[in-house]
């Protein structure tokens, strides 16, 4: 059967079912089996005697437990005299605490097969533990020492400073990192996520400042505890109470960031030269008037899914599967303490840079005019988001992460549960309207990190203003 089919294929262009009638049944898409119910995991909550809230999501598939203490304090608190302070402070927790030096923490963690990680991003900070449940108690001892008794030794800061400075050089060299770093500056100006870390700003930080920041910001008043895996609320509460129940410290009162740079007045190209680059890293973005609490949030979310939120969305099918200009193209709606930012991004072959930008812009426009979104595309996006739900919540981490986001950004308690109905509730008309209202707009910022010598001429032909930037995002003198 197969041989004759293949021979046919060699001789002619196709292998129609009629030449191999015994396989024609395969052309029928199989019917699904009886659907099986999916039960979202649920969190159980408790409160320590100092008021610290604990959420537990059980999962007994493997004997692992994760414990995370999260703070709504991140580099948004840094201020101009402490750029990078939150991030460095969190990293330094793991460098020395109580009786342990850095090697001592590492060795003690290994003895328990425990991973303890610490870190701060722009919006939050956290200290996390992952450990086999049989070692949970002793691992919690080490974990609490790292969080509550950091030593902030100068020697360790010297090593970390060297590492941070070296990382800056890497960030200025790697096209993807340049795009991320400069993109943040263009979106946020010189505040919040736009604050530029430099060698000078790192050198200005002191271990005293770290110690002070930790005492004033890493407090139970600013914290929540998230536990997942092979344990129960009843089992873990006494363990946490013993280590964190008498920990004191109030909530910070500083206002969360809201300032953000306005969008450009006309679509503008920002070009960072990367001589010899075989691809250009593209980001096209604009700030929206909405956040996750806005009435039409899910309409925008679904419109974006259809435009570029998945492999089988328009942007990727066009730039990758039709044109072959890229390995992939996506768009997304990013959220943080400020209004959402919509971004379409791709790395495209250098000689297709200008054409790719034209296509991104054309797809934005045509989705509102001659190629409006269709019911089929909405079904595709909806099916993708709803169908994959069971596996997304296979481990406790996803739900815990959503609970944490809900806390940071003030989302309703039933966010995760209601998500499915919120997605189902988006009509094609509503998604279309959201696209036209929020995303279809003349003022997009287009960041290009690529080989200027090769691409500049094509970019000029787009007849958009071009602003040249260095790899830190500073404007260069016009030539």
């Amino acid at each position, binding site marked *: *059967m*197969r041989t004759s*089919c*293949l021979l046919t*294929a060699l001789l002619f262009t*196709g292998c129609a079912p009629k030449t191999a009638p*015994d*396989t024609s049944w*395969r*052309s029928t*898409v*199989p019917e*699904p*089996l009886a*659907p*099986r119910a999916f039960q979202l995991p649920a969190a159980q909550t408790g409160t320590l005697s100092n008021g610290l809230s604990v959420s537990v999501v059980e999962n*007994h*598939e*493997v*004997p*692992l437990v994760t414990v995370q203490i999260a703070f709504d304090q991140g580099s948004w608190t840094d201020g101009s005299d402490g750029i990078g302070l939150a991030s460095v402070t969190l990293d330094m927790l793991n460098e020395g605490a109580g009786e342990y030096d850095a*090697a*001592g*923490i*590492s060795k003690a*963690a*290994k*003895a*328990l*097969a425990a991973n303890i990680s610490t870190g701060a991003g722009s919006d939050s900070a956290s200290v996390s533990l992952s450990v*086999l*449940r*049989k070692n949970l108690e002793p691992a919690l001892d080490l974990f609490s020492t790292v969080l509550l008794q950091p030593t902030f030794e100068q020697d360790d800061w010297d*090593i970390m400073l060297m590492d941070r400075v*070296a990382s800056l050089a890497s960030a200025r*060299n*790697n*096209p*993807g990192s340049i795009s991320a770093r400069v993109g943040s500056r263009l979106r946020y100006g010189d505040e919040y996520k736009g604050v530029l870390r430099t060698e000078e700003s790192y050198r200005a930080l002191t271990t005293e400042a770290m110690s002070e920041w930790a005492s004033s910001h890493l407090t139970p008043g600013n914290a929540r505890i998230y536990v997942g895996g*092979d344990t129960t609320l009843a*089992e873990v509460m006494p363990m946490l109470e013993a280590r964190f129940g008498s920990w004191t410290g109030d909530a910070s009162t500083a206002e969360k960031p809201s300032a953000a740079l306005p969008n450009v007045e006309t679509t503008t190209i920002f070009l960072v030269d990367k001589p*010899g680059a*075989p*691809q250009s890293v593209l980001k096209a973005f604009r700030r929206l008037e909405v956040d996750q609490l806005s009435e039409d949030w899910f309409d925008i979310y679904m419109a974006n899914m259809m435009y570029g939120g998945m492999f*089988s969305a328009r942007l990727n099918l066009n730039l*990758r*599967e*039709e044109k*072959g*200009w*890229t390995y992939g193209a996506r768009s997304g709606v990013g959220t943080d303490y400020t209004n959402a930012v919509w971004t379409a991004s791709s*790395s*495209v072959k250098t000689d297709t840079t200008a054409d790719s930008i034209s296509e991104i812009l054309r797809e934005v426009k045509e989705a509102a005019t001659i190629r409006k979104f269709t019911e089929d595309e909405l079904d595709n996006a909806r*099916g*993708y*988001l709803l*169908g994959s739900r*069971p*596996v997304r919540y*296979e481990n406790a981490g996803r739900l815990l992460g959503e609970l944490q986001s809900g806390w940071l950004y003030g989302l309703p308690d039933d966010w995760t549960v209601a998500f499915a109905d919120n997605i189902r509730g988006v009509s094609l008309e509503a998604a279309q309207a959201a696209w036209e209202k929020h995303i279809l707009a003349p003022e997009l910022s287009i960041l290009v990190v690529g080989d200027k010598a090769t691409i500049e001429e094509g970019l000029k032909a787009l007849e958009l203003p071009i602003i040249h930037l260095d790899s830190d995002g500073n404007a260069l003198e016009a030539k």
Partner: protein
Amino acid sequence: MLLTALLGLALGANAETAPETSPTISIPFEEYDLDNGLHVILSEDHSVPFVQVNLWYRVGAKDEVEGRSGFAHLFEHLMFQGSEHMDGEYFGPLQRIGAQINGTTNMDRTNYFEGVPSEQLPLALWLESDRMGFLLPALTQEKLDNQKLVVRNERRQSYENRPYGMTWWWLFENLYPAGHPYHIPTIGKHEDIDAANLEDVKAFFRQWYLPNNASLSIAGDFDPEEAKALVAKYFGDLPSGPQPSPILDVEPTVMTEEVVIRKTDDVPHNKVWMAWHSPGVYQPGDAELDTLSSILSAGKDSRLYQALIEKETIAQDVSAYQVSMLLGSFYVIEATAAEGIAPDDLVAAIDAELAAVAESGVTDDEVALAKTNWEASFVRRLSTINTKANLLNQYYIQTGDTDYLAKDLARFQDVTTDGIAKAIAGLKSGRVVLHIGPEAPDESTETEGK
């Protein structure tokens, strides 16, 4: 608790009443062959209503023919472009039911996987069987041309347009002589990818993409009798072909000299890689080198971190790892030079520390710590049905023993200080030392690209 029992991954006893013991590490499964030679592995796990379908083919980049480097991976891309009875993007019908779908190619094998909601198991098996049996009728020049461009962009994005992205390229071509199956990394050369034609695709498909050269692993929420009937329906009538002979054995490459390669590139720091030939995956010495890596570079108490970063400021970072492959592995120590440190001095410092470790040996304590963490890493691997489905196929295809998990862990639990001493002794003077650094500022008149 019922789920835990079904999984076979229990704590040994009820946690509330019994003392804590080491977890029992196992994945329950059953396996059988279809008449056409397709191997089938079924592993139930009803924790979520989702099922993972995972297929391994015994063909990788090592099996490519001369002048067609990168072809196994290019072919993998074409497997997503449609087949006779579903002629279109596979992502289309799969994403709309919520499937998680992908495929990967490495030197030794190619795999394909999709996780789907339980009730969609028939759809996943339908598509996998259609591309196993009926890929070529839907193949067109247009699809091939498009995916050649996509794959060449993958090469640019993942290798060329990132600092040190060509490291692997330079290591492979210097570790393995021309003609060796590992001489060229999986991604391949631009000109070879560009040269691939429809005849190549057809020949490759007919040679390798046969039920008797594949293993189908299904893990997750399914009824075994229902799954067996579906597998029989969709795969049972695919004809087998001449048994393919993937390369499983080559004359070991022996390096007696040190080969030093110096590259200047658009990179921020001076980095060095030292690479030695080492025992193949699952061979004696393989687990010993993995354990040595933990002792040398895992954590701030590790030997190389202490010697090169903590006690002196010679490196910014250092990392040791075994790259385990079927035909023979290689062992790597890589490090970034601290400001003002010459790459040669960095290499000398690493050599000095290696010599010190060889001289005094590693301690029982160090080996015990490493073992403790291997156990945990095995447990972590079992936390998703996707990794379980893939691991079962990996064991079956690469060891012939689907039930290899406990033996795999035992390889690590049986490592001794003597075994590690032998492994270190195997890191001889025949090796590749690769330096990649920025152009020296005073000789930067040439600004050639890569």
